């Protein structure tokens, strides 16, 4: 429909304003990390907060986070890859039901199922409370829908004829999968892995509620908030956390650059 010009201008300004609100967190974090107090407009620029990060237990908890990310990613790929293959390529009764069940971890509020896991562990396996494997399996749960759907989408756009050709030539199903299917869907699997990694490595809810004995970085930072309030030092920690995790993902893309040829080009 035709809108008067002044309405168009107002709407455009409104849209840009919303975009500004969405972009603001990034600017805010960068500003806060280079000042010594949280004041706007910024004054008292200093890099003191960066020094403090180094002598805290920050890098130790960063290591825990990276381990958490790595193990959850491996777990998620190991269980979601075959499931996504079955959902996409096989026909079986209850297929659409299973497709819906996959989404249950996103439908249920994550706080309630994490509490359910916590209570269950506290009552029946009190010795395992806060142990690393429990944290990994509980954290990974929330990423299942995303990982399965990403791999499934990648499988859906890959033609089945190549697999059939390999099977006709006498390759067994396992060999066909590793030699034909997996290279074809590699971009999807790597994307799913990066989603799983970012999700798990920055996850706060599961490690915190389950009382992780070795706190991942998100929990470590929150403990500082409880103790000190929101100081600029914490902005530095959050920024460093994001840089390390996004850096690892960037490195992954560079390593697997070959697989992505023709996907993004």
């Amino acid at each position, binding site marked *: 429909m035709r809108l008067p010009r002044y309405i168009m201008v107002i709407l455009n300004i409104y849209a840009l304003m919303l975009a500004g609100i969405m972009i603001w967190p990034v600017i805010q974090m960068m500003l806060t990390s280079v000042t010594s107090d949280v004041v706007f407009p910024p004054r008292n620029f200093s890099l003191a907060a960066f020094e403090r990060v180094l002598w805290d237990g920050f890098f130790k908890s960063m290591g825990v986070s990276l381990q958490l990310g790595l193990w959850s990613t491996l777990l998620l790929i*190991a269980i979601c890859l*075959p499931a996504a293959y079955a959902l996409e390529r096989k026909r079986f009764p209850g297929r659409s039901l299973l497709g819906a069940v996959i989404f249950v971890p996103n439908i249920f509020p994550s706080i309630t199922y994490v509490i359910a896991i916590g*209570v269950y562990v506290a009552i029946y396996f009190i010795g395992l409370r806060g142990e690393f494997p429990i944290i990994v399996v509980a954290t990974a749960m929330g990423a299942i829908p995303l990982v399965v759907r990403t791999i499934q989408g990648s499988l859906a756009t890959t033609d089945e004829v190549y697999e059939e050709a390999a099977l006709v030539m006498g390759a067994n199903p396992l060999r066909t999968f590793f030699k034909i299917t997996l290279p074809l869907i590699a971009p999807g699997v790597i994307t799913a892995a990066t989603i799983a990694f970012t999700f798990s490595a920055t996850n706060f809810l599961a490690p915190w509620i389950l009382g992780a004995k070795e706190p991942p970085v998100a929990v470590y930072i929150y403990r500082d908030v409880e103790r000190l309030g929101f100081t600029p030092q914490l902005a530095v920690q959050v920024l460093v956390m994001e840089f390390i995790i996004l850096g690892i993902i960037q490195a992954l893309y560079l390593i697997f650059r070959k697989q992505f040829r023709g996907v993004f080009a």
Partner: protein
Amino acid sequence: MGITEHVDRVDRRLSAHPVPLKERFQIWRQRYGETALLLSPLLLYMGLVFAVPILFQIAFGFYSRELYRGVLWRPVPDFTLENFARAFNPEEVYIDSLVWTVGVAFFTSALSISLSLPVAYFLARYNPFGKSLIELSFLLPVFGEIFTLFALAYAFAPQGPVNWLLMGLGLIQEPVRFIGSPLVVIIWMSVPTLSVLLIRSALVGVDVIYEEAAQTMGANAFQTFRKVTIPLAKRGIMGALLLSVSSGVGIFTLPLVLVGPYNNWLGNKIHREVTPFFNYPMASALGVILTAVSVIFLYLYLRTQEGGEDR
């Protein structure tokens, strides 16, 4: 008709002659054995880590409790509705918390969707200045919850940019303490973010022809939008609202960090039942209630989406 259906039909015709159980199992294994093997890791994992704790949570909700070593309330397998009765008892704190959680989720979702309507329409129909920037900005929450959370905390600090802006505009005389009050959570939940994308896809589905017809008949832009576009996109808008409420009731981390552990959101109440009070049956009953509320809104969302394109 696929081969599987054909085999099924033949099977059914043959079933007049009973097939021995062992043979039936062999047929099943031949047909679905590989699929079952592929699905078993996921089903095992979701069963052990998700379904079993959730089932126990439902069971614990109906258990009565006993004090164990003077520290924690342990669930005892003895059927009682006491936990649910307490949850809905107006003299206890829980029903108040439930009403607050659902009320805030509903209010903020409605506000966020009303605020996103004009911009979503604009993005759906026109090519605004800085379109790629606007669209990119709505994908920015990839940084994760923690990042947004801290940015919010600094933005709403007593001397932060929000207070600076409000004071500059002359709306307030002295800085408002946002951190520690539920206001900051309510404001952030009301900011149209994901809802813009949802509403835009609903509005794209409305054919321009109807709007043009209304304009030809002499309606002005606002009338057209209110009387033609919105009713035609009603289903998508309702869907976005219900989806937003469904995820809004499960909010936990945002109020925990920005308001503090002693806030009124039900998620935090549940966690408090677990950590300082060790009242596992009560926590389980509240968890069941919160999940039920969330699932009800999601069910309503699915109801609005079914029926396809023909209506």
